[in-house]
């Protein structure tokens, strides 16, 4: 790799060279560069194999399934009859729940993702300050990474009792005025300020438990970004008479904003793959109760498409708005 050769650009691989690298006895086979390349490929070989066998192949099968009518044969086999895009139109137009759940979940996701990002950023800024018990606070904020993983978050809401209790708590709260957010909302709507924006805001406040439970990793990522900011920047700002508020917006925020992309993607994926997601539940229901494998595959592809779309849009917006510092 360290060898300089003027015949080719060091950082790019032409088609000819790429092929020759793997052919023993060819003109470039013995060079350091191609030897290194072969070692590199050997190192990632497990991934390449796994990706082809356990990802590409099932993906293709699942895509084919989503466009066909799958019937299970007695025994182990299954039969696929191609039906075009019927499964997709069924999922969107005929299935009574999928459509509704998808819109609801996506809406919830959008609100919660923004709230999670803001929340984790604020918490990270606080945890970055010096105070007693900081280690303990950090440990506790990171605990949700364990407590909100896998089977744990969904299991309790499966129970009817849980829903009942939530309903009771809500009605009791609104009757006695204990529910602060509800009474505040009432107050605002009486005074004529209540509007769509406030509804979204209150939704966020009511979901604060979910939001905090979902922001463990994001807090740590932001925290690492905050710790990477050199203190001399703040000193310079202080000398120039910059207030803390200004320093926050002019130094802290821009320096951490590149991490926003990583966190946004992580948050969106996390929300899309949650166990207690109703779209996922619906897909499982269609698959295991109705044995409509084609329909279920089509649904999961639609869902996946929506996720990709969201990630693409948010990455586009963030990369446009974020300034990357080169150092």
């Amino acid at each position, binding site marked *: 790799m360290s060898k300089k050769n003027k015949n080719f650009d060091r950082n790019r691989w032409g088609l000819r060279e790429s092929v020759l690298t793997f052919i023993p006895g060819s003109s470039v086979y013995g060079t350091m560069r191609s030897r290194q390349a072969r070692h590199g490929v050997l190192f990632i070989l497990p991934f390449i194999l796994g990706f082809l066998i356990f990802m590409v192949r099932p*993906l293709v099968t699942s895509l084919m399934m989503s466009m066909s009518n799958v019937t299970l044969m007695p025994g182990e086999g299954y039969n696929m009859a191609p039906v075009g895009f019927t499964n997709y139109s069924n999922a969107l137009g005929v299935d009574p729940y999928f459509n509704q759940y998808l819109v609801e979940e996506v809406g919830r996701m959008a609100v919660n993702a923004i709230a999670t990002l803001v929340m984790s950023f604020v918490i990270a800024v606080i945890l970055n300050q010096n105070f007693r018990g900081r280690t303990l606070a950090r440990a506790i904020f990171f605990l949700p*990474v364990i407590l909100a993983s*896998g089977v744990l978050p969904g299991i309790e809401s499966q129970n009817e009792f849980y829903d009942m209790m939530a309903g009771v708590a809500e009605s009791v709260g609104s009757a006695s005025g204990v529910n602060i957010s509800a009474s505040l909302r009432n107050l605002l709507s009486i005074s004529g300020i209540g509007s769509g924006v406030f509804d979204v805001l209150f939704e966020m406040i009511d979901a604060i438990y979910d939001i905090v439970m979902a922001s463990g990793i994001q807090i740590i*990522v932001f925290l690492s970004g905050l710790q990477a900011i050199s203190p001399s920047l703040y000193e310079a700002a202080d000398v120039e008479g910059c207030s803390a508020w200004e*320093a926050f917006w002019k130094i802290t925020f821009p320096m951490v904003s590149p991490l926003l992309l990583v966190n946004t993607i992580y948050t969106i994926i996390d929300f899309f793959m949650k166990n207690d997601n109703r779209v996922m539940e619906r*897909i499982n229901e269609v698959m295991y109760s109705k044995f409509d494998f084609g329909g279920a595959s089509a649904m999961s592809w639609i869902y996946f498409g929506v996720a990709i779309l969201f990630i693409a849009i948010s990455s586009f917006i963030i990369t446009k708005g974020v300034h990357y510092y080169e150092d």
Partner: protein
Amino acid sequence: MKTKQKAAAPAATANAPVLRGRDRKYIFKMKVKKYAISIIRALLLFGLCFMIIQPMLIRLATSLMVESDLYDSTIVLLPRNVTLDNYRIVAELTDLKTIGGSWTLRSLLNTLWTSLLVSVCQVLACTLVGYGFARYDFPLKKFWFGCVVLLIIVPPQTIQTALYMQFAAFDVLGIIRALFGHPLNLRTSILPYVLMSLTCMGLKDGLYIYMLRQYFRGIPKSLEEAAYVDGCSTLRTFGEIMLPDAVPTIASCFLFSFVWQWTDLFYSRNFLSGYSIYSVQLSSIVSRMSRYFNAGSDVAQVVPNARQQQLIFVGVLICCIPLIILYCFTQRTFVESIAMSGSKE
């Protein structure tokens, strides 16, 4: 803000005797501001931390209650009659104890060894792949890394059915058919999942590859080059120079992998159905309750909802407590690796 306060404090002590009214007012203002900020911060942090911890405390308290305590409205948090009987019932429901028999801890032990096995495989494969991506230049590198990102993004549910069927009649390019005469049914064995873990297709493997790659990228190139110049082979460079430094990152990947595998439902249900895994047992605990409580009697009784909820709490606690204990000891390792992977691209 902090630096300002620090600058103000020594100035205050030095000039204390000759303070004028205005200075004193200023210092007083700064002090009030400082205390106000720390009080607000403490309240906020306490509230949020309490919110995270409180459900666990409630679960713990509820899990120790006798059933009659659940319906007693004078009991809010602390149980009046403490009992460990709920744990016994849940243990019998989740295959930790044979009914009326001895404690075998079967599902937890199964979870333990499968999680260990799977996470060792995952970390092994991801370390190699992460190292390959970080330190070597090869054709199509960008493309393959794009595939890693795709791996992070694709929900496993999309390929769930296809994988399931693939393993029901497992065959790679007709090789297995040629060897055994028929495709293998691997559905109830752990082999498919181990294979997937060894090839980086397990639970959240894309994330581990990313974390390890970020770490290996940070190592100065000269270290490696020095080794090559001295005639160190590729594998030896990797094993003796790169790996020892990477142990903390690898350890944290292992911990993540272990913890997430422990609580995982999706992969366990699909690929480990031949074993009794705790998270799978826990997920179907409600449906097994009525059978359990009606075992001896002819009259079918409905298990009260509050009772169901209490037993779920116990089940969740049994699942969480080993992890929380583990977390208490390894908290630092957990936090630091993520901090590393978050650092700049």
